[in-house]
């Protein structure tokens, strides 16, 4: 493991070259496919970052759409009004989302399980309502005219960063501390783990990458509206990580890609069954139910969320 890690920079540069080359060729393919590939990448970032909060640290957060919205709006605000370079705007969006994660995390991470889920859900809704009323970013009219900066290169560069950083975190003293909180918070504290600090860190880490993902999303669609960041968006990401296997970084990334492509593939169902009603979402839901019945621990997950007794 360590030997492999020593070559990480070589791998990284190798990956960079590949992304760069694909980036040159890719715009010539069917724009519909291109869009799916972009969304798959953004979903990987969202899912892997939520996995750090929900899967590794075991804190049930439903506020991911909120963090994404903050990153999306703030980075677009910077590029639209101040012509800030795209990478800087992305980072700034992530940092602001992270700061909000800190502000929300400090009071709410005392809560456990369902209570935390409700609190983070409320936070997401508050952010959405604020955006609805912020006139400078369009409010309820939406935010048009965002420059199109997002390319294959930027999306998959961020994907690489989020995967490498989550993996580095997982295999480290801090990562073990975070895992121990998920496994048994009381024992973790008795072993000297400052659980509050690590929970907040996991929260900020997840919020930061969600913010960056939001920035990528905004600069691809070139239009933002608060109604894109409802509670359902958080649930969508949650489904990805549960299906992929809570806690498994590779599983979550694969399921993010799978769940991006699946609804698109199911568009053929209408043709196949020759019906007037679209059976797409019915089949989609059925597939989700079946996977959860057959593999409750997720596609690649070994850890099953246990029902907390407290």
């Amino acid at each position, binding site marked *: 493991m360590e030997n492999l890690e020593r070559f990480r920079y070589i791998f990284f540069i190798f990956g960079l070259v590949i992304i760069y080359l694909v980036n040159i060729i890719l715009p010539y393919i069917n724009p519909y496919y291109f869009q799916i590939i972009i969304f798959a990448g953004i979903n990987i970032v969202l899912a892997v970052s939520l996995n750090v909060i929900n899967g590794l640290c075991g804190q049930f957060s439903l506020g991911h759409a909120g963090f994404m919205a903050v990153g999306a709006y703030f980075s677009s605000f910077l590029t639209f009004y101040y012509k800030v370079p795209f990478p800087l705007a992305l980072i700034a969006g992530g940092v602001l989302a992270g700061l909000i994660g800190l502000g929300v995390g400090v009071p709410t991470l005392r809560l456990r399980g369902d209570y935390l889920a409700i609190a983070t859900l409320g936070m997401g809704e508050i952010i959405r309502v604020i955006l609805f009323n912020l006139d400078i970013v369009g409010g309820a009219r939406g935010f048009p005219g965002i420059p199109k900066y997002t390319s294959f290169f930027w999306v998959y560069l961020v994907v690489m960063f989020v995967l490498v950083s989550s993996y580095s975190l997982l295999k*480290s003293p801090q990562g073990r501390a975070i895992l121990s909180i998920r496994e048994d918070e009381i024992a973790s504290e*008795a072993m000297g783990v400052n659980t509050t600090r690590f929970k907040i860190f996991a929260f900020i880490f997840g919020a930061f990458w969600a913010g960056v993902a939001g920035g990528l999303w905004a600069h691809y669609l070139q239009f933002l509206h608060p109604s894109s960041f409802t509670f359902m968006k958080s649930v969508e990401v949650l489904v990805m990580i549960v299906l992929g296997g809570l806690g498994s970084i590779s599983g979550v990334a694969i399921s993010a890609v799978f769940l991006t492509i699946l609804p698109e593939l199911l568009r053929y169902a209408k043709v196949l069954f020759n019906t007037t009603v679209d059976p797409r979402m019915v089949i989609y839901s059925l597939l989700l139910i079946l996977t959860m019945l057959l593999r409750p621990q997720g596609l690649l997950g070994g850890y099953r969320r246990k029902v907390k007794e407290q």
Partner: protein
Amino acid sequence: MSLLKLEGVTVAFGGLLAVSNFDLTVEDKELIGLIGPNGAGKTTVFNVITGFHIPIKGNITFNNIDITGKSPSYIAKLGISRTFQNIRLFSNLSVMENVMIAAQLHYNIPYFHTFFRTSLFYKVEKTIEEKALKSLELVGLEKVRDEIAKNLPYGDQRKLEIARAIATEPRLILLDEPAAGMNPKETDELMEMIKFLRDELNLTIILIEHDMRVVMNICERVIVLNYGEIIAEGTPDEIKTKPEVLEAYLGSTVVG
């Protein structure tokens, strides 16, 4: 100078006094047994020492530092470690990871080194790993280091809890019913191990135990608790004959 000192410690759950006016002075390298009927408040004493309960009255000092009402992680850093009555392992993690989480207590590595995998990171990881392995060897679990903790047999899970507690390099270790669920042979091994911890690692040990064989054989001093109060204190031989103790355990004699 005494290592741990509890003065007039009182813990209440609502109107119930789980522990009242508890005084205890523990000297360095002592091996103390804490016994008493179910619900006497033994585990509450452990919880209040390790910071999981905050006393409504009284003071706790450890190594001349006031630890009353401090957080469990802070107290663990000062050198008090514990095991739990109902085993609390990190069940989905490997045996090694379980111990490493404890062993990393005194090694803070900044996030920068973690994310950029500097040579310092590998050096610290290695030290943590070596220390964890040493604790595993002490309890004889080094062969199952890659096993998932929840798949271990019950006796080994208890041992793993002890290994994890030792790995934090404590000065005082609190064992909450370490022999529960063990067979006689395992209990013998456990007694050897506890003696070893005290004699070779110079640890101070307080243990709660219902198995009187363990308490009477290895403890130098026994404290008997009932309804949150100390009813007797002394060497194992003294304790055996005290009428208060017999009464608490067996009930009072019927008069007339």
